């Protein structure tokens, strides 16, 4: 089912069937995806994998009672069976007095270019294998002892469609290509941590050399052991490192459902300064080149750019239709549907941190005594409600007199994200394109660091 217009017809069929079976409102999202991936173990390509399938999520309302179903059988019979399950579930569900309506038709969708690349959609297994061979070859030549421990490359094409009872119908398609290198090397301490770098884009024209160089440069530093001391220090964080902290704390707090349910520590702080003046963060579902860029969200609502923090001032939260209706605001196009679970949630799209003026090397060169943290362990165990985090920086590199010295084993970073936001010293000028973020490295001026004595 690779034709998104056929998918849309199935969605419309599901909506009409739902009404026949007694639903008063219905919506359906269908997605076909095909992913081709090659993976590396012990420095050699171990397997080439293809995962292909169609998923159809149906959500219905009988009055104010909701039920949903999923099927991976993209036929009218398969859909009828799923619709029956959804309607019967809705009939025994509990009433939700806050349910207002599904999304209404939009006057226009944003024009977003570059979502589709023929190079990724038609990629051949041999081409993926060739890219991986090149990656492994360059990687093993880049640094003595380097072993590609978890590496690979792949490409995904997706076709998605949405329809609901209110006449919203929408389809789109896109591609994503990715290559990643996670490598280790023997060190004085036994083994370095896995150092990870990747390149994601819409096509398969990967920047292999940059990926390899970042891993090799970091591994070289990890081979040298350094010791640190506990206290408050300046810490330069790779976007991948602070991105994980924010994902499990700040970004939970800007969700409209967290605000309405009283789970957000900043739910009552719109218009107030919550971060340093040099920090501006947006959620931009239309960002060119963003991996989560789409024309519409998973409810068929147009994607858009929403400024979250503007020069330190909290400007907006993000919303899907249900929670926006409840709060009396408009959806910001931030609905994400877990197809198999039938759950529609508020979720960020591309988190964009506005770049600063100087590059990361220049900023780091002015650190007298501090650390560079390239990645972290355990950000997912942070407290999303309070914003408290207590994690391991790994790799964490000691910086002395502007020079990166070597890896500090077992370094921990602790604190609260809302304190951290107030200590943004400088944002670097070069954004990194990550899976859900476009963000430069950031120097935080004062971070609680705990080191082994």
């Amino acid at each position, binding site marked *: 089912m690779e034709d998104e217009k056929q998918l849309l017809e199935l969605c419309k069929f599901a909506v009409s069937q739902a009404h026949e079976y007694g639903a008063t409102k219905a919506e359906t999202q269908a997605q076909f995806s095909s992913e081709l991936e090659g993976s590396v173990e012990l420095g050699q*390509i*171990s*397997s*080439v*994998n*293809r*995962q*292909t*399938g169609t998923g159809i999520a149906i959500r219905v309302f009988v009055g104010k009672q909701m*039920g*949903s*179903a*999923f*099927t*991976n*059988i993209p036929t009218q019979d398969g859909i009828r*069976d799923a619709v029956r*399950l*959804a309607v*019967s*579930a809705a009939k*025994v*569900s*509990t009433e939700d007095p*806050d349910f207002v309506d599904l999304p209404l038709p939009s006057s226009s969708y944003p024009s977003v270019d570059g979502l589709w690349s023929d190079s990724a959609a038609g990629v*051949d297994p041999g081409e993926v294998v060739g890219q*991986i061979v090149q990656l492994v070859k360059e990687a093993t030549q880049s640094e003595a002892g380097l*072993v590609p*421990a978890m590496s690979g490359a792949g490409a995904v094409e997706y076709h998605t469609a949405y329809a609901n009872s209110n006449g919203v119908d929408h389809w789109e398609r896109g591609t994503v290509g990715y290559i990643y290198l996670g490598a280790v090397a023997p*060190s004085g301490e*036994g*083994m*370095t*941590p*896995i150092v990870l770098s990747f390149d994601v884009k819409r096509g398969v024209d990967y920047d292999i050399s940059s990926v390899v160089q970042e891993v090799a440069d970091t591994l070289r530093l990890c081979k040298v052991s350094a010791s640190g001391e*506990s*206290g408050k220090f300046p810490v330069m964080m790779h976007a991948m490192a602070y991105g994980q902290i924010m994902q499990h704390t700040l970004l939970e707090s800007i969700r409209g459902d967290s605000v309405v*349910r*009283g*789970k957000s*520590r900043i739910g009552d702080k719109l218009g107030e300064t919550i971060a340093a003046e040099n920090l501006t963060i947006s959620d931009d579902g239309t960002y060119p080149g963003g991996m989560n860029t789409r024309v519409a969200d998973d409810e068929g609502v147009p994607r858009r750019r929403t400024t979250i923090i503007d020069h330190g001032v909290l400007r907006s939260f993000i919303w899907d239709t249900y929670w926006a209706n409840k709060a009396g605001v408009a959806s910001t196009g931030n609905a994400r549907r877990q197809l*198999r*679970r*039938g*759950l529609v949630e508020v979720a960020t799209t591309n988190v964009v941190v506005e770049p600063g003026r100087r590059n990361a090397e220049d900023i780091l060169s002015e650190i007298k005594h501090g650390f560079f943290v390239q990645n972290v*362990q*355990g950000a*997912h*165990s942070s*407290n999303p409600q*309070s914003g408290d985090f*207590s*994690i*391991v920086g*790994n790799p964490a590199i000691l910086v002395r007199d502007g020079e990166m010295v070597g890896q500090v084993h*077992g370094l*921990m970073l*602790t604190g609260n994200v809302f304190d951290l936001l107030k200590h943004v010293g400088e944002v670097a000028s070069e954004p990194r394109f990550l899976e859900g973020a476009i963000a430069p490295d950031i120097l935080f001026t004062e971070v609680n*660091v*705990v080191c082994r004595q």
Partner: protein
Amino acid sequence: MFDELERAIEPGLELGASYVELRGETGFIEYIQMDDGRITALTQRLERGVAVRALVDGAWGFVSTGDLARLEDAVRDACRMARAAAPTRKEPIELAETKTREDRVKSAARRDPRHVEIEEKVAYLKELTRVIRDHDPRIATVTAKLRTASGTKYLVTSEGARIEMPINLVWVYPWVTGKEGTRLSAARNEEASTHQGWEYLEKTATPEAVGIPAARRVVLQLEGVPAKAGTFPCVLGPRVIGVLAHEALGHLAEADLTVNSAFNGKLGQVVAAEGVNMTDDGTDPGNVGTSKYDDEGTPTSRVEIIKDSVLTELMTNREYAAKMGLRPTGNARAESYLYPPIIRMRNTFFERGDHSFDEIFEGIEFGYYCVDFRGGQAQMNASFQVGIQEVFEIVNGELGRPVTDLSISGIATDALFKIEAVSDEDFPWELGRCGKGQEAFVSSGGPSIRFAKGGIMFGGQT
């Protein structure tokens, strides 16, 4: 489904595959989520699909498909995938020998969740929400999640294996937040069975048994004092020592990871203090990681990872068993037909020691007693991190004030030598999910274990 799967083997062999494996699956899966008493998801799904693996010229090709009418095409595609990778390999992948089995494993579930009315499931979640809310007025929000699955999986290989096994799951997970003034806290709990049916939630994981611990942890955090930063003597209780067994050591003993980890080359060497034993047991009756066979058809087993302080065995699949000259331990697991099987833990635990529970606290002037965790993560250099959501001070050998949430960390290969005492207590299993690119239901546990200062770091206030 066996016949459909078997018909698709031959085209793979004709294309030169030395091994073809098809894993079919049919299932009925349910997910219900209730946020503060409101149902936000009530989803039923019918799932069917097949995973195809073909070994051609020493490389794997894998295809996952929901289209059972085109299985032979999927097998041909898997061979094409493998053939693309094969010329790049310096040495071909080989599989360790296992006895080929034909078997049909029956479900032990008494109340198949598929046949339990939705109303009963909704009532369970309502009661869970009520129990948690009634525990303390400071409880602010309750999100309760319920998953059930029932179905069958089928394994057919070109070597002649033909195994049918049940898919069973009942799983419940409350996420609770608390609020007192401007202070916010959060905690979770999780219980599951992969062998029992709905009766598990009726008799074992009742709303009270699941809800009260989560609510209690939220309140303790609101009342807790901040943790200090640095290293202290500490006692890790069964749920935390279990996750340490899993995160800090278990992953290093998964053979596909061992080769790139701090355990590489240490088989046969002393890796822990005296009296330390750690095991992964895929045969423990009724436990969530237990199964008669793994997803390659190898019988599961008891893997003595650390025996008398020595790194003794690694967990393997057939590929790594052949590569490293080890026995296949039955640890190849796939989340579903969407994924290839990889090496995963099952039920991982420290064995009991010979100290009484009270003895292991004796002599600690100041330290911490860690009771429950919230997530953890390991790295190849043996660095581990575990988020702690229930912890108390130890002052002069006695339990003291509760502490607000924090995390602990360390280098596993160092920390193992800082173990001072292992208690002789029976311990409850911690039941959860491991994410190594795929979800796997696992359990972990162990008796309370005491670490000397220097073994465990506490990420508190500096």
